[in-house]
C-alpha cells in the first residue's frame, strides 16, 4: 500500500520539479494556452495508457493498442457518414472484438501476451491498410457530423478525466480490480482460490482494446479525418507512461493515478525539449532517451528506498 503511494508520488515529484524548472526557464511554457494544448494532446495517450495499466496489473502486456487506435480512428471516420452512433459503435465494436480474440488466445489457449498482441499489432495495421486501399484513401468526417463536436479540446479532456476516475474506482474499489491484482500477483493462486482467471484476463484485454479504440475515435473527432499513419509506436509510449507511473511489469501492483502522472511527465519532457529548441531531431532523440533513463532510474530507486 505505502509502497504504492510512494511509487505514484515518484512520477509526480519529478513532474513538479520539471514544471517549476520549465516555468522559470521559459516564459511561454506555463501559459494557460500552452498547458491546455498539452493537456488536449496528451488525452489520447492517456486513454490508451489507462487500458495498458489494467493489462499490466493483470500480469500481461498489450502491444496492439497503437494499431487498434489507428484502425478505430479510420473506422470512426468511415462510419461517420451514417451518423454519430455508427461512428462510435463500429470502431468500438471492432476494437473490443480484437481485444476479445487476443484475450481468448491468451487466457484460454495460454499463449504469451507479448506474441499474441504483437500479432494483433500486425493484423490490425494490415486490416487498416486493406480498408484504406494500402493507405491511399482517407475517410473524412462530414463537416456537420456530431463527431466533430466530440473533438473539441474540452470534451476530450473531460472524457479522459472521467475515464481515469472510472478506472481508479474499477481498480481500487471493485471485485474485478481485486481479481486483476490477484491474477497479476499469482495466477496459480488466483486460480486455486477459485477466481475466474480466464474471464478476468479476457475482460482486461477487451477493456484495453475498447480504450484504445475510444482514443482512436477521439483522435478522429479532433482531426476531422481517419488518418492512417497515426498510432505507430504508441504502445511503447503507453508502456513507458505506465512504468514511469510506478506500475510493475511483473503484475500485481499499480495504480491509474501513477499512469496519469507518467503521461503528463512524457508530454512535459517533450515540450521542454521543444522549448529549448536547440536540438535537431537526432539530438532530441538522444536527449529523450537520456531523460527517460534518468526518470525511470529515479523512480525505481525512489520506490525501492522507501519501501
Amino acid at each position, binding site marked *: 500500500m505505502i509502497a504504492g503511494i510512494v511509487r505514484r508520488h515518484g512520477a509526480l515529484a519529478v513532474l513538479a520539479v520539471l514544471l517549476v524548472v520549465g516555468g522559470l526557464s521559459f516564459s511561454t511554457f506555463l501559459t494557460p494556452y500552452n498547458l491546455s494544448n498539452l493537456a488536449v494532446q496528451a488525452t489520447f495517450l492517456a486513454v490508451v495508457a489507462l487500458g495498458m495499466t489494467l493489462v499490466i496489473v493483470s500480469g500481461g502486456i498489450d502491444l496492439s493498442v497503437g494499431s487498434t487506435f489507428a484502425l478505430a480512428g479510420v473506422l470512426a471516420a468511415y462510419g461517420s457518414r451514417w451518423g454519430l452512433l455508427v461512428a462510435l459503435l463500429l470502431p468500438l465494436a471492432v476494437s473490443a472484438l480484437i481485444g476479445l480474440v487476443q484475450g481468448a*488466445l491468451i487466457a484460454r*489457449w*495460454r*499463449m*504469451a501476451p*507479448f*506474441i*499474441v498482441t*504483437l*500479432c*494483433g*499489432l*500486425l*493484423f490490425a*495495421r*494490415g*486490416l*487498416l*491498410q*486493406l480498408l484504406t486501399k*494500402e493507405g491511399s484513401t482517407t475517410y473524412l468526417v462530414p463537416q456537420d457530423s456530431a463527431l466533430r463536436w466530440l473533438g473539441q479540446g474540452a470534451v476530450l479532456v473531460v472524457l479522459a478525466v472521467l475515464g481515469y476516475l472510472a478506472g481508479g474506482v474499477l481498480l481500487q474499489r471493485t471485485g474485478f480490480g481485486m481479481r486483476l491484482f490477484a491474477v497479476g*500477483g*499469482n*495466477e*496459480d493462486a488466483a*486460480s*486455486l482460490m477459485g477466481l475466474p482467471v480466464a474471464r478476468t484476463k479476457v475482460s482486461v484485454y477487451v477493456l484495453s482494446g475498447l480504450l484504445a479504440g475510444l482514443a482512436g475515435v477521439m483522435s478522429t473527432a479532433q482531426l476531422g479525418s481517419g488518418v492512417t499513419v497515426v498510432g505507430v509506436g504508441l504502445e*511503447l509510449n503507453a*508502456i*513507458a507512461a505506465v*512504468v*514511469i507511473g510506478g506500475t*510493475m*511489469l*511483473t503484475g*500485481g501492483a499499480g495504480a491509474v493515478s501513477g499512469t496519469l502522472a507518467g503521461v503528463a511527465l512524457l508530454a512535459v519532457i517533450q515540450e521542454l525539449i521543444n522549448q529549448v529548441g536547440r536540438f*535537431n*531531431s*537526432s*539530438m*532530441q*532523440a*538522444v*536527449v*529523450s*532517451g*537520456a531523460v*527517460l*533513463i534518468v526518470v*525511470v*532510474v529515479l523512480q*525505481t*530507486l525512489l520506490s*525501492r528506498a522507501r519501501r
Partner: protein
Amino acid sequence: MRLDRLNLRDHGVYLALVLLVLVNLVITPNFLTADNIRTQLVQMVPVLVVALGMALVIGTEGIDLSVGSVMAIAAALLPLYLGYGALPAIGICLVAGAAAGLLSGSLVTFAGVQPIVATLALLVGGRGLALVIADGQLKQIRNQQLLDLGSGSVLGVPLTVFVAAVLVVLVALLVGKTTFGRQLVAVGGNRKAAEFAGLPVRRVLLVVYLLSGLLAAGAGVLATARLTASDPSSVGLLVELSAITAVVVGGTPLTGGRVRVIGTVAGALLMQLIAATLIKHDVPASVTQMLEAVIIASAVLLQREGTGLRLRRQEAR
C-alpha cells in the same frame, strides 16, 4: 534428444517450417535453386544474429528492445574508422555494442529498472545517437575488405552466412555446455532461488545484455557490409520485434528459464520464408501483415504449454 521429450512443444516450429517449404515447392517458381536458398540465408543473417543475443536475454526473463538502435550505432561508427582498416573498425563497433549492452545490463541489474523500459530508453536514444554520429547521413562503403565480407563467399557459402553459422554454434555451446549457460537458465527459471544457490546473478545478467549488444553490433556490421552503405536511419528498424518473434516461435518462452538456440534459427528462417513467399507472390502489404500475424500465431499455438496449472515464475524481488 530423448524420445519422451519429442513432442510438439519443441517441434512446432520445424513442422511449420516444413509445411512452408512444401507449399513453396508447389507454388513458387525457382524456389529450390541454389541462388534462392542463398538469398534467403543471406537476408536472414542480421535478424538471426540479433535473435541469438535476444534468446539469451529472454532466457533470463528479460527483453532487449535496444538491438535495432545498437545496430544503427555500429553502422554509424563503421565508416568513421575504416581508415584504420576493416578489422579495427569492426572491433570499435563491437566494443560500442558491448558498451551499449553493458549500459542496459547495469540499468537492469544495479538500478533495478525493468528490462523493457531500460532498453526502450536505449531504443529511443540509441538511434538518435547513431544519427548524431553520422550527422544524419548515409555513407557509401568503399573499403574492399568490408565489401567482400558483404558479398563474398567460400565454396558457395556467402561469408555472412558463414559468420552467422559460427555464431550459432558458439551460442549453442555457450548455452548447452558451459557453466554460464546453465546459470543463465537458472536465473531465468527462478531468480530468487538462483540467488539462494549462490549464483552470480548480477554478473550473469550483465554478461547476457553485454552479449546481446555485442551480437547486435555484429549484425549492424554484417548488414552494412551487405548493403554497401552505412545507413543509420533505417538499419535495424523494428529488428527487435522480428528477433523476439523468431526466438519465441523457436520455442524459448518469454517467461525465461529455457533457451532454444536451434529453435531460434528455425524461427528466424520461418520468418524469412514467410516474408519471401509473400513478396514473391506480390501480396500487397496489408494482406502480408495480416497473414504474418496469422502464421506467427499458429506457429506459437502449436507449441504452447499444455493445459492444467502452469508453474509460474516467482516474483522477481
